[in-house]
């Protein structure tokens, strides 16, 4: 059995550098190829399917009822204001998706995993 070294090696520095460069390139590429802001919508997923598409720049809120979507733990309130979206109210063990707060980046998901519910800003199809 080869025990892993506890002291840093030069290959650690290489891996660190490669990961940092790749992450930076990815950041640049994803920002460059993002569509103009007026071409974005809020897609709502339930059980891995899109169930709703909302305008990002129309202030509005929606309530998704447990009666209509049985795998929700309880009703979920979605809020869209000034090009930002958030889960205002939800029920889950740790409330991760409501803690996350407002999101205005395309591609940044709000995932309510125990509810099988996800919201993401995407380009209009």
């Amino acid at each position, binding site marked *: *059995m*080869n*025990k*892993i*070294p*506890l*002291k*840093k*090696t030069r*290959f*650690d520095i290489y*891996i*660190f550098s490669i*990961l*940092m460069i*790749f*992450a*930076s390139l*990815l*950041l640049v590429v*994803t920002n460059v190829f*993002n569509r103009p802001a007026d071409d974005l919508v809020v*897609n709502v*997923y339930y059980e*891995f399917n899109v169930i709703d598409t909302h305008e990002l720049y129309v202030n509005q809120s929606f309530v998704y009822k447990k009666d209509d979507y049985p795998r929700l733990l309880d009703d979920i309130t979605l809020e869209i204001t000034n090009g930002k979206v958030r889960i205002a109210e939800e029920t889950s*063990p*740790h409330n*991760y*998706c409501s*803690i*996350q*707060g407002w999101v205005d*980046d*395309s*591609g*940044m*998901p*709000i*995932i309510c*995993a*125990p509810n*099988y519910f*996800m919201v*993401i800003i*995407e*380009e209009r199809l």
Partner: protein
Amino acid sequence: MIKASIQKITYLGLLLAIGVVISYGESVLLPLAFIAPGVKLGLANTIGLIVLYYFGLKEYVSIGFLRVILTALFTGFGFNFFIALAGWALASIVVIICYYWNRLSIFGLSMASAVMHGVGQIVMVAILYQTIYIINYLPILFFTGIASGLLIALIAREVVSRVSLTTTLNEYEK
């Protein structure tokens, strides 16, 4: 020989239990979801690195898999489970490759593992939701993975340099 096997199983069982408790405790006490979804320190991976250091690759992979299964007993075998499983699978593949390559220290292994764990999770979400747009979120997971990987490696290094499992075993035999 039998005694050594029993001791090994006992240690692995204890480490697995600690890993599950840390994993669950971290999700309750240290929620980092306000940074981005899925972002966590991954403190339980410290246990993985300790197992890798003391016992080897086979035990590392087994304990990691069992930790995912046992954690799912608390959180359920739903969406979370598949994401965690994908993260574990990709991270383990990378650790296996790096382990046999034998050039990286605990820091390099931990960094690569943490980053690939995030990539595995994103790939699974992209497959389940059939949306490629979520890859925009990858850079965040790369940066947070690098930072958490380094921190986890630092903690694991401090633990293995202070706690010698073989010494403890010998003392137990006396």
